[in-house]
């Protein structure tokens, strides 16, 4: 019988302690961010979808159309095409399409890119009800950014 009352008292005490903790937290400042009003700044290594890097000298993409990114992609979401302009030895990028619906943001393409023509963007507010909106033409994006 004494055990019963002991438990009753210690149990009530434990509840009071817990309540004390929650009351203490009630008076403390808010830790959450008010999302649509405030925005989180992405860390430098944040992996968004990939984008092409501009070559500062020429103003065009650094891509040499080697196709390594396309080969390394586990989900096959990259399509690269290029052609040799007449009189030039180097290929020039003509299409760079990313099917973002399949991309798993693993970063294997960025690692495989020797000339450093790929980088992660910091976009994270991507939302659309249409699938086609996620098939990115990265070359067009690069041109639009300039």
């Amino acid at each position, binding site marked *: 019988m004494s055990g019963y009352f002991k*438990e009753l008292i*210690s*149990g*009530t005490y*434990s*509840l009071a*302690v*817990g309540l004390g*903790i*929650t009351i203490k*937290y009630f008076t403390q400042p808010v*830790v959450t961010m008010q999302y649509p009003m405030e925005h989180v700044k992405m*860390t*430098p*290594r*944040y*992996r968004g979808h990939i984008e092409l890097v501009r070559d500062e000298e020429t103003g065009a993409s650094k891509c040499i159309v080697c196709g390594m990114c396309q080969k*390394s*992609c*586990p989900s096959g979401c990259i399509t690269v095409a290029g052609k040799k302009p007449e009189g030039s030895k180097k290929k020039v990028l003509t299409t760079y399409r990313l099917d973002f619906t399949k991309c*798993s*943001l*693993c*970063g*294997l393409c960025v*690692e495989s890119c020797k000339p450093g023509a790929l980088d*992660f963007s910091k976009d994270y507010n991507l939302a659309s009800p249409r699938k086609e909106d996620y098939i990115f033409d990265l070359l067009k994006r690069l041109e639009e950014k300039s």
Partner: protein
Amino acid sequence: MSVFAESQTQETFVVNLGPQHPATHGVLRVKLTMDGEYIDRAEPILGYIHRMHEKNAEVGTWAQFMPNTGRMDYLHALAYNFGYSIAVERAAGIEVPERAEYIRVITCELNRISSHLLWFGAFVLDLGGFTPLLYAFDDREQLLDLLETVTGSRLTYCYYRFGGLYNDIDENFVDGSRAFIKRLRSRMPMYHNLVTKNIILMKRLIDIGPISAEMCRKYGATGPVLRGSGINFDVRKNEPYSVYPELDFDVPVYSECDCMARYMVRMDEIDQSMRIIEQALDKLPDGPIKPEKVPKLIKPPKGDYYAAVEAARGTFSIRLVSDGTNKPYRLKLRSPTFSNLSLYEEASKGMLLADALALMGSLDLVIPEIDR
């Protein structure tokens, strides 16, 4: 005939728990045959998010499977990265630089803490307490921010590479980890005061859901479930990998076999993980994070290889069969919760439904890992 008279018969009825039910943490369905409030038979039905990772592995190269490993146990993804890296490194004979090993241990243990914190919140939520979840998420959020600064992602990490890491950590991360550990240390007593010592939680967990050591052995249960049944088995100690032998930590073992024991094992593991991280940060050597020569195309010699790591839920192991080409011939993923859940049918027999949910919570299920 009145309703009461009908209930006097020995009839059982079937209740579907899930696949969309908050207590099943994902899409697990449990077909319960109930005798009143008591469970006659609980049959887990799996496969709602089966993605056939093992076949996926066979179509891509060795490196291309790495992102998939982060998508099985989404709460302790780095342990899966770790297990796969170790398996392939063992098969292909790749040496890992010491700095990379230390960083792997640090990040893996940080991830383990975040996994246990989420489990803690969700488990108490299953039992009817909402507040601890928010506190646990507050801490976990800091941890995810920290891991994001090095890995670039918040949940489905793909950070380890064969022979090393994706990129190096910096001073900010080291300082941030130390600050986080200091903060979590100061908050652990609060968690214990708020939850562990709470009379309602004690009543819901003590002597509920017994899983004996023998049952664990027969079903192959591992991790906190096994250690909550009094068996001292932790892959980090018993089959040491990476730099764990150089770090001093204890394996928490409780022999009560009930839900409380499993709860306590996980809470103590958070403390031990903090100890490991602190030591690893102190010992962190300088040097490269990738070996000087990483073969571009990995072609492990013919044969099969086995590697096991201690994930937050138990022993995660990988069996590789290589035929000497650049693609895995067969890759078996042994997920801990698959075995842990298989004992649920036997363990929950004759339990009250509410208690069986406590038992399910104490198994710490992550469904994508069971279904793979």
